[in-house]
């Protein structure tokens, strides 16, 4: 057992940088069982992506007595460097950070998987904090009945639109997805160049397919996944996207593309996460104040309640490998970054996931006076979480499969149904390659 562990520990390194392994092999003679928890006596190490560095700094200021090592990690969504480190830590049986901001939400899948089991079950460790969350917001952290992470920010999609454009041209806001598609095509005809959505980023799958409750990410169990792109819910999303794309209302670019700002200022309406407001419209695309506004998510024709996706909304995890004072401090850290207004209200750009501090953050929108029709925006932000459709993070990166297949298929001349079919096929391939049985 010991030998095999040691071998698999060094194997990955062998594949990539061969010489180093021999040395690491010699050093890694004894491997700890994953169940053995250690206590540093208080010092903690936390891993954060660049936008979350201020959170760790605010913690240092608030708790100067806790010795903390803040490590800045690669924050690329869908990046593999953090995965790589953890694969090595898990094999070596040591080296894990005590708390982490996962760069991709998909990371929660491997971090809670039995082979890694990094993320501690917080259900009994932080019951009061968990109590403060709307269960809908925390649903991504609930895996097989345990709460394995804390949400940094809530990121449900609301329906964004350019109020100035709508007022100037006398358009009526859509209330259903079907009306959105029809209006998008009309606007594209009457105002060439104006667009109503982006397809090329990793969150577009959430925006449209999750918003339609299409089973792309339906985790049946640890080893089984249900993927069915021929489901009527997926077909309605494909029809919607086809109508809009053929009508020239959608861009193949993604919201994060370096050159998307030009298209961004021409966006007249789109479903999009609450963080689009400050992060995209105000700071990245620099759309003038008083133009953009948000309303509640859209409903599908014939359905009474709205239906929407969720784009990110980062996750904090705590190590399951620590105990005693070290665990206590790591939990203090997690509680601070998830709930404390000194980070969540004063510094964070996204709507806090933790309920009790949401109102204080929403009040800041008023002082900021960037959006048009602020009371409606505030209400939309608060209500959207309950309309989010189920979506489970998997051991592979669904967003990457989307960016690799959808826009490239369209750019090389394929149709929208071709693109969605290519996406569905690759999704099944990825799932089977990782080891899921696909139903």
């Amino acid at each position, binding site marked *: 057992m010991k030998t095999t562990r040691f071998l*698999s520990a*060094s194997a990955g390194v062998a*594949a990539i940088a061969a010489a180093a392994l021999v040395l690491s092999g010699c050093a890694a003679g004894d491997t700890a069982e994953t169940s053995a928890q250690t206590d540093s006596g208080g010092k903690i190490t936390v891993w954060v992506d660049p936008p979350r560095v201020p959170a760790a700094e605010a913690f240092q200021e608030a708790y100067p007595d806790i010795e903390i090592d803040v490590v800045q990690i690669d924050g690329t969504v869908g990046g593999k460097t953090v995965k790589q480190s953890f694969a090595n830590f898990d094999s070596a049986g040591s080296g894990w950070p005590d708390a982490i901001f996962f760069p991709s939400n998909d990371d929660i899948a491997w971090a809670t*998987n039995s082979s890694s089991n990094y993320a501690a079950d917080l259900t009994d460790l932080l019951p009061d904090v968990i109590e403060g969350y709307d269960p809908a917001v925390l649903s991504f952290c609930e895996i097989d009945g345990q709460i394995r992470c804390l949400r940094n920010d809530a990121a449900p999609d609301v329906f964004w639109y350019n109020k100035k454009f709508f007022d100037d041209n006398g358009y009526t806001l859509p209330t259903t997805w079907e009306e959105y598609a029809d209006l998008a095509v009309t606007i594209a005809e009457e105002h060439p160049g104006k667009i109503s959505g982006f397809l090329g980023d990793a969150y577009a799958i959430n925006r449209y397919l999750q918003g339609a409750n299409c089973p792309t990410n339906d985790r049946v169990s640890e080893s089984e996944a249900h993927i069915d792109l021929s489901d009527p819910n997926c077909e309605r999303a494909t029809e919607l996207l086809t109508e809009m794309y053929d009508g020239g209302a959608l861009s193949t*670019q993604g919201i994060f593309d370096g050159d998307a700002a030009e298209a961004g200022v021409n966006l007249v309406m789109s479903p999009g996460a609450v963080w689009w407001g400050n992060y995209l419209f105000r700071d990245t695309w620099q759309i003038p104040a008083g133009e953009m506004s948000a309303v509640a998510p859209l409903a599908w024709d014939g359905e009474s309640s709205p239906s929407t996706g969720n784009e990110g909304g980062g996750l904090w995890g705590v190590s399951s490998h620590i105990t005693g004072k070290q665990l206590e401090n790591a939990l203090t850290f997690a509680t601070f970054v998830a709930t404390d207004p000194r980070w969540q209200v004063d510094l964070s750009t996204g709507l806090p996931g933790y309920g009790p501090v949401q109102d204080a953050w929403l009040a800041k929108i008023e002082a900021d006076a960037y959006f048009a029709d602020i009371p409606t925006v505030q209400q939309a932000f608060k209500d959207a979480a309950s309309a989010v459709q189920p979506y489970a993070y998997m051991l592979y990166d669904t967003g990457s499969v989307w960016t690799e297949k959808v826009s490239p298929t369209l750019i090389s001349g394929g149709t929208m149904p071709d693109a969605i079919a290519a996406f569905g096929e690759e999704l099944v391939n990825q799932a089977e390659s990782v*080891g899921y049985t696909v139903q």
Partner: protein
Amino acid sequence: MAPYLLLFVVAAAIPIGYAFWISLQKAPTLVNPQTGFGGFESFVTVVTDYRFFGTFVNIFTVMIIWLPIMILGIVAMALLIHASPGRFGGAMRFVYYIPGALAGIANFVLWVYLLNPSQSPIAFLWQDLGLTTLKEVVTTENLPLILTAMLFFQGLGTWIVIVNGGLNGISDEIFEAAALDGANAWQLAWRIKLPLIRPWIGYAALMNLAYGFQLFLEPYLMRQISAGSIDSEWAPTQLGYAFAFTNRNFPAAAAMSIILLVITLAIGIIIVFRSGLFGEREEKAR
């Protein structure tokens, strides 16, 4: 010989043996934690992976386009520089060397700008092709051409200097004898210099081939700048990386590297023997 042997054992023989041993283990995958001796199971996993042949098609597509252009470019430029004596030749040699001397990442950033239709000095070229966004330029179809251009301009200068070194090693007496026999500059290059630098050309082909097979960083970063349009498992090395860190299947990753080693070694041996890289021709050149 002894220091070389030591390096070979530490940096090649032991890791290769170790990788082979790992590849014979059975992986504890994310959904099946059983381990043990697996025989050639991981090789089967690798070869039957739905991306396996695709990644080799990708890398061979680049090689077929890039290697001939690269070798022709190196030889032609080295001969031209060698035929331009004095300051001009020296100055040009330096100019060609500059892109290769730049740090890799600075070079890469340069390409990001060149490829972006909204910033590039050659934007007119992209506009004429009807390409208006970076995503439309950096596609899987265009990637072999983009990589060819990147690798060519990055590597050319260094190899001109090396092959030029080979040309400088040719004795002046040979050129004098050829001149006496009435050879012009063209005949000198074609009939005298080229045959004598064949081992250097072989060496250039071998090293570039090895580099090409290990392509990882270039497609990896191209994926990032195209915001995920390029497959994350585009090259065989990237597939190995995914086996290790997405699938957590270290034996499969080790098997992938063994497969790459066997292929590169086979092609390398062919080049070594065909070009006389380590043979008597080298003696003749002196």
